[in-house]
């Protein structure tokens, strides 16, 4: 789960990580009042959306007076902000963060994450702040320092010193880095973060360290023990269909093709997209109905798939293990009846109670194309979507 920059900074502040003063605003007037209260010569008005590259897209602007902050806020609020992470349609900006301007001497990069290869926590640090870190990794890998942390021992002082050296900090700054990193580490572990990224981390003219930006992702699997974090979810930032799927415990990702998919299991669901592509078609979505798929869930899944107007055919691909094919078949028949599905339906049932399931479909009198193998399922669904 992602949160906004202003929420990340609230958490940083609560843990003692140094951040500039700032306030959230949802109207230009609020932005002006915030800039006045901050009282610094320069303030920064920053669009609050879940996407990187906001500055380049025109979502971050410097203001030299409260009136100018008001003007920038009025430009940014309500805009469709397009960045390299939003897609061409952009994201509607509903909130801005008004922040005190900082005197920047150096821009650094800092992140905490779980390194999948070593299965340890890792600090990633670089002197090349304010840039796309993936590009830094590609072009100048020697400018990236990775410090691995044993999750059962935790971040040690000597490791902070190594990071300070890699960041070319002087002795007083290194001391500040210790407070800074220890606080971030506590936040990472106590709140089950999956990524903390500060880009840039700045050294000010006075030699202070400040988190100028803040990106925080949390482990969805751990939200059950962090109701305070779960509450930070901003439904406006999520794809509407993905959110609806989440609410009924289905995994759904919208794509831009014409064959709607309903599958049990994430691996088979991904493979079904691949099958459709191999057969010359294009999938409209990824949908994993999960191990507990039953009649009600099948119906909800159909509703979700049918919200997409590009869908010209639906492929149901079930390999029953825990899931029983006869229950899925009942769900398909019930949903087809209740929802009045008008696009062609191709159903492939294998595994537990597959024969019973196929019988239910055959006896339903509905116009359902049955398939035995994955190959047949793909071919028939693609042909149906093309109107063949």
């Amino acid at each position, binding site marked *: 789960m992602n949160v906004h920059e202003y929420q990340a900074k609230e958490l940083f502040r609560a843990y003692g990580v140094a951040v500039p003063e700032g306030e959230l605003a949802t109207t230009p007037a609020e932005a002006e009042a915030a800039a006045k209260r901050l009282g610094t010569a320069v303030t920064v008005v920053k669009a609050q959306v879940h996407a990187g590259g906001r500055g380049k897209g025109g979502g971050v602007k410097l203001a030299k007076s409260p009136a100018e902050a008001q003007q920038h806020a009025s430009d940014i609020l309500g805009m469709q902000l397009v960045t390299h*992470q939003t897609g061409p349609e952009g994201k509607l900006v509903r909130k801005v963060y008004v922040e005190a301007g900082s005197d920047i001497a150096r821009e650094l990069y800092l992140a905490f994450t*779980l390194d*999948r*290869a070593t*299965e*340890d*926590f890792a600090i990633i640090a670089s002197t090349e702040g304010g840039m796309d870190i*993936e590009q830094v990794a*590609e072009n100048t890998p020697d400018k990236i320092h990775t410090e691995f942390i*044993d*999750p*059962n021992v935790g971040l040690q002082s000597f490791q902070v010193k190594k990071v300070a050296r890699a960041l070319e900090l002087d002795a007083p700054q290194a001391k500040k880095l210790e407070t800074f990193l220890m606080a971030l580490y506590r936040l990472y*572990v106590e709140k*089950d973060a*999956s990524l903390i990224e500060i880009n840039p981390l700045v050294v000010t003219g006075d030699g202070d360290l400040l988190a100028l930006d803040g990106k925080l992702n949390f*482990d*969805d*699997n*751990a939200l*059950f*023990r962090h109701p305070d974090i779960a509450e930070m979810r901003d439904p406006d930032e999520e794809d509407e269909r993905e959110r609806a799927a989440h609410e009924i415990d289905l*995994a759904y*990702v919208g*794509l831009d093709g014409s064959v709607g998919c309903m*599958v*049990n*299991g*994430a*691996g*088979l*669901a*991904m*493979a*079904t*997209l*691949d*099958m*459709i*592509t*191999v057969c010359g078609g294009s*999938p409209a979505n*990824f949908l*994993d109905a999960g*191990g507990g798929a039953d009649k009600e869930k099948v119906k909800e899944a159909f509703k979700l798939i049918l919200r997409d107007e590009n869908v010209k055919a639906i492929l149901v691909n079930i*390999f*029953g*293990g*825990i899931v029983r094919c006869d229950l899925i078949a009942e769900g398909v028949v019930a949903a087809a009846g209740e929802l009045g599905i008008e696009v062609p339906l191709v159903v492939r049932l*294998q*595994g*537990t109670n597959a024969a019973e399931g196929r019988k239910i479909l055959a006896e339903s009198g509905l116009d359902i194309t049955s398939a035995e*193998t*994955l*190959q047949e399922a*793909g071919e028939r669904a693609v042909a149906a979507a093309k109107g063949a």
Partner: protein
Amino acid sequence: MAILANKDTKLLIQGMGRMGQFHAKLSIEYGTQVVGGVHPGKGGTTIDGIPCFETVEEAVEKTGANASVIFVPPPGAADAILEAVDAELDLTACITEGIPAIDMAKAKRAMRGKKTRLVGPNCPGVVVPEQCRIGIMPAQITRPGPVGVVSRSGTLTYEAVDQLSRLGIGQSTCLGIGGDPVIGTNFVDALALFEADPETEAIVMIGEIGGSAEEEAAQFVKDHMSKPVAAFIAGQNAPKGKRMGHAGAIIAGGKGAASDKMAALEAAGVAVSLSPAKIGETLAAHAGLK
């Protein structure tokens, strides 16, 4: 032989809730020796003929169990894994989906140098055809034979096994290693076990997007494997930055794409199937099996 388990495996069920009980029954029907269950508050009772205990330690003392399967819900699952490790079981397979990554990172570190092998979490378990069923796989689709199957997925494993069985090619062991970022047994571990198993002649591995386990497997095949390997990578058409159902299935930071994994495997001499419908045929052709 086979790997990880056989007809002599004595299995405990950790978490005798609805799902644990249901799959215990199926495993017993398949011929597995299910010797006990562990569930808080159920110690001293018997469920469907299975004696239940409060701790794994006591269950091992009383039954001689050497393996377990974990159905404990996410908040207590890492604890259950460490309890199995503490009791020095040979094998524990964790079926639970949704364990916090930090819990798993800590548990995995704590397991270093210990005797117990962990399979999973977020996996379907292990089946040795006609000998032993640990977990939730539909064992009826398997048949005994020379092919080892290892996969990050559940239902896609069934698909691959079904393709092999339909071609008349049986399996030595079918193993789902799980879709999470931190797992106990990875591809390299499984490949090494299959390479050393005299009953396994060829291997099917099924990967997916995210992480670099397939690339590491490719390197291992190149350096250490004499047996033929066929592979399929799910998610060739997955968009970047989106989690595809599994916690670990995400192309992030320009890493983990299917195309990179397929190229690495091909370069290592692995026969890679483009189509998920041709996994069995690809293996048969590559290994000269029919």
